[in-house]
């Protein structure tokens, strides 16, 4: 089975965000595999372990993303294709990224039975690239999955729908996006880390792709990035607990006006 996994590198979720000159400061930040994409990597490796085949990691990003790709290889993926954007100075939005990934799949002649991606990235949180890519490739997609079983060409998936669960049947080829609860991503073993250093990691530049620059031009633009106003610490109530509770209810009623 040929398995593709789309992986984005993001800030660690424990990082604070600072902004300088209108952009988010990256210096010194800890970068990780987007947590939802890590579920996708894990599930791709599990599918390979069960059905055989090969797991290819696809990542768009600057130089720093190599570390996250190597981690996915250390977990057990077989090879990586990295679309290096270090020297690309145009704007890229979700439309652009989906087009770039599709063009890369074609340019690299990557065959696939299944494509896995995270349900969203914890930085932009727009949840677009997976479904967009499926449409560009003319294959179905199922988003926010918490379980997948593949049997020959048939697929049964459990999908989280705002807390409810749907059991959905489909066929390969298929794109799925991973929701929390799909699996527990493994830690790379020491042996895995050693092996990962030698695994193939193909580097592609956007210029190498058979795609016109206008085709990947962003449809949207960023006007401003800013931090939310800092919230003042509130009121810690004092006195007997019973009195505190009475006071709280009064405050919720008359001051906050939320009940």
């Amino acid at each position: 089975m040929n398995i593709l996994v789309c992986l984005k590198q993001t800030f660690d979720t424990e990082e604070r965000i600072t902004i300088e000159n209108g952009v988010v400061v990256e210096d010194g930040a800890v970068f990780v595999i987007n947590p939802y994409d890590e579920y996708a990597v894990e599930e791709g490796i599990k599918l390979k372990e069960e059905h055989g085949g090969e797991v290819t990691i696809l990542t768009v990003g600057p130089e720093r993303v190599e570390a996250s790709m190597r981690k996915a290889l250390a977990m057990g993926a077989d090879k990586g294709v990295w679309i290096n954007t270090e020297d690309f100075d145009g704007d890229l939005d979700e439309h652009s990224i989906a087009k770039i990934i599709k063009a890369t799949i074609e340019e690299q002649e990557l065959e696939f039975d299944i494509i896995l991606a995270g349900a969203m990235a914890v930085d932009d949180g727009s949840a677009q690239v997976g479904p967009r890519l499926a449409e560009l490739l003319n294959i179905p997609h199922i988003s926010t999955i918490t379980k997948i079983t593949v049997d020959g060409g048939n697929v049964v998936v459990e999908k989280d729908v705002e807390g409810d669960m749907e059991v959905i049947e489909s066929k390969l080829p298929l794109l799925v996006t991973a929701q929390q609860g799909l699996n527990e991503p493994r830690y790379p073993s020491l042996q895995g880390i050693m092996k990962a250093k030698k695994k193939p990691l193909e580097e592609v530049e956007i210029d190498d792709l058979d795609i016109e620059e206008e085709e990947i031009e962003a449809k949207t633009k960023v006007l401003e990035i800013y931090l939310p106003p800092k919230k003042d610490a509130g009121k810690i109530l004092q006195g007997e607990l019973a009195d505190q509770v009475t006071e709280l209810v009064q405050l919720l009623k008359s001051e906050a006006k939320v009940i």
Partner: protein
Amino acid sequence: MSKKILVLADVREGKLRNVAFESLAAARLASEGGTVVAAVLGSFAKDHVDVLAHHGADEVVVVTDSKLDQYTTDAYFQAVKKIIETVEPQAIFTGHTAVGKDVSPRIAARLGFGLISDVTALEEVDGKLVFTRPIYAGKAFVKKAFKEDETVFATLRPNNIVALDADTARTATVTEVSVDFDPTLLRTIIKQVVKKATDGVDLSEARVVVSGGRGVKSEDGFAPLKELADLLGGAVGASRGACDSGYCDYALQIGQTGKVVTPDLYIAAGISGAIQHLAGMSASKTIVAINKDPEAPIFQVADYGIVGDLFVVVPMLTEELKKVLVGK
């Protein structure tokens, strides 16, 4: 210049969701006095025409095919594409819900549209629509716009844009659109739906959220929280700590991984307040923290804090609220 704006009205189990009215309010703003067209999909679609008109629709497009009664990506995709091609709107709005998130990127990819997801505010600046959306789950915000001549397409986060008051004098014209579904493109089949969500109050749309952390200590520990949430018509949420400890389903998780919520009232019980959790709830209008540890970071974002054991404080709070709410 007046415009034509399309709202894809969010429906859950045949009922309109509040975010459909919020989308209509956004559409009225964007239309600059032009036409707001609402589209409803499903055999029940005509039932919703009047209320959509009351909240701002001038025209309602209905697709009454029963293939659309339950959401599937491919059927919705075909219907929505047909509607867009029929209406030819300058802008499209829908909810950032399970449905909106799933179908909108596919539609955008097919039609070559940009898409701004999870919008929490929109405004008109010099004749252009400017969209505000959180990034890093609300640790920062970005203002975005579409480039010249691009079709505007946005999914709106429930509970953020204020719906217009219903004007029962308003009426709308009704247009029926029929879709010839391509059966070879209905590729995912729903075999079963398992209801797990708490009594139909969706976490992301709830006005009140009562959330538990590691401090709830067990699955049963959520019982007093659930009682409080039920009393207030709210939903129960959880921190990653509580989910990782197996006290509750991951579907309840609030944070940078998990859901981002912005209720009117957020009650955090036994939650210390890790950065990743704060990202998911600190934009709530009013925050109450209940924690044994006076140093817990959750108190830094709380409007009101009580230092104490949640198993003592939460039941007391429920009783006290009962007294106050009875008079209502």
